[in-house]
């Protein structure tokens, strides 16, 4: 019977948080996006005696109303520009970089977006603008379309990580706003990105 319960909870974990590679039999890491109510909706099993598989919130899982305002207002600046600087500086929001003429996510880009997703889920009061950027080597018109695809690829990935799509919007700048205006390979690497910008509550 307890096997069934374990299996059921593990199943929830997999469904809710697809990136966790496998269930662990003991001290199961709880899913970050499953609210406590969902876990409680598991049919009660009277004979269950063990507490080994009890799902508890992880320390960084800001779920209750009493916790979230304290975490954000105390540590994060109110000014949105300052907040963006701090968020980039501390690595809360990391941009996703792309290969030349590519819009698929590298593993580096995926881990950058995973970090961003974790922060965004903890700070649900903020909305996100995702800007798609390209290097100067392409043509303006095609690059506008490529930038659109890059921004949306990042958005969709953040959605699979549990960030609500309605909090995010995208815009393509193509090659119009390079981060590094130099005409060098190292500048081009910096300029091919999905740039994450907090745009307020």
């Amino acid at each position, binding site marked *: 019977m307890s096997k069934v319960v374990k299996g059921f909870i593990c199943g929830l974990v997999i469904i809710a948080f697809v990136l966790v590679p496998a269930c662990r039999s003991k001290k199961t890491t709880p899913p970050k996006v499953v609210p406590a109510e969902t876990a409680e909706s598991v049919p009660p099993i009277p004979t269950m005696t063990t507490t080994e598989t009890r799902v508890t919130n992880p320390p960084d899982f800001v779920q209750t109303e009493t916790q979230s305002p304290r975490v954000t207002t105390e540590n994060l600046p109110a000014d949105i520009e300052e907040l963006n600087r701090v968020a980039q500086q501390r690595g809360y929001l990391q941009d996703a970089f792309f290969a030349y003429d590519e*819009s698929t996510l590298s593993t580096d880009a995926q881990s950058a977006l995973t970090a961003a997703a974790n922060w965004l889920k903890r700070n649900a009061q903020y909305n996100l603008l995702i800007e798609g950027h390209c290097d100067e080597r392409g043509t303006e018109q*095609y690059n506008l*379309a490529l930038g*659109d695809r890059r921004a949306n690829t990042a958005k969709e990935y953040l959605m699979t990580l549990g960030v609500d799509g309605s909090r995010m919007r995208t815009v393509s700048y193509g090659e119009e706003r390079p981060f590094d205006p130099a005409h060098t390979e190292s500048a081009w690497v910096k300029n091919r990105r999905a740039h994450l910008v907090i745009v307020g509550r």
Partner: protein
Amino acid sequence: MTAAALALIVTPLYAQTQIQTSIEASKAANIVRVAIPWPDTMLSTEAINGPFFAPLTRDIAGSGVFAIAPVPPNIPPNADLAKSANAQFVLALRVTAEEQDYVVEARLLDTTGAMQFGKRYRGTAPALSRIAHMVANDLVRALNGRPGIFLSQIAYASNRSGYYEIWLMDWDGANQRQISHHEALSILPSWSPDNDRMVYTSLGRGTSDMYIINRRGGGRIRLPTGVGLNTSATFSPISNDIAFVGSIAGNPDIYVIHDDGRNLRRLTTTTSIESTPEWSPNGRQISFTSGRSGTPQIYVMDAEGTNVQRISFEGEWNDDATWAPDGEQMAYTSRVNGRFQIRIMNLVTRESRIVAGEGSNEQPTWSPDGRWIAFQSNRSGRWQIYRMRVDGSDLMPLTFEGENKDPDWSKKAE
């Protein structure tokens, strides 16, 4: 007004002696030589040359119909002058001031002294360059049967105000003026077939939106399409349709919408990136760029989205296709040895040639008579707009201030 006046001062003046034409020898037989002596006038050289005589002689020299014959000194503008200048015609001009107006009389005399063309024009001082272009247009029509292009306009994007905004200039680079005022990135203008309106993209609202504006900068409307991106918009030459790049969830495709925002249709349905639509002159086909083969290449489809054919095969990046007015040639941006160049393809034979130039050269646009191509180049270190004949000769920079790009030549000759 000050900005426009400054632009005129910055633009180099072209005295008559600097005017040259470089027509290929094979075509030279059809070129009519015309002598254009200084106008009969009591007005100062300054009042006449910059605003009137210089643009008129520039137009005549660039007409492809006339060549300017050097004028021997001290001969009155009559049949004798034509003979001694070894010209078929003399253009006799008279400019007088009547109260607030200038009156221009233009007479085209042949070697017998007979008047082949004669017309009076009247306007205020700011209209003098317009009168010059009208005289040139009328002369070309008189000899060629087709109107000249000297009142056509080139729309473009310039960042000289601090942001890229939509600007307009005359065909010779004169009269540069700002049309849009979003104080935000505003790019890729495209003319309506009646030369009255332009459609373009602006990020003024933080999203990428399509706008329509009239040529005087008024009547601006935003055209909601219901999809994202809204770039590379271009008017159909035969209907009220606008083709553009729309995107849903990061899949840019070619869409068409009425200019009143109704009847959105999606023409391409692949998962690859599509961009840069352009109508054929008869409105029956649309060229576009697609990454479906792995690199951006030029394709053509019927205006309903059917019958897709690949056009470009050379090089690993081609974009910005634009049809010549006769529909038989296409110019596009083609990467050659790491640099973008203007490539001109004959759509019948599918043979193409590069019009080589320094730097990167992009976004070609044809003059309404198909004799000229304007494009953007960064050969000076900054993006500027240039004009050349289709064979690459008579290259002339048109912009000098700030950075300038996305040229689109108006569709009608006048």
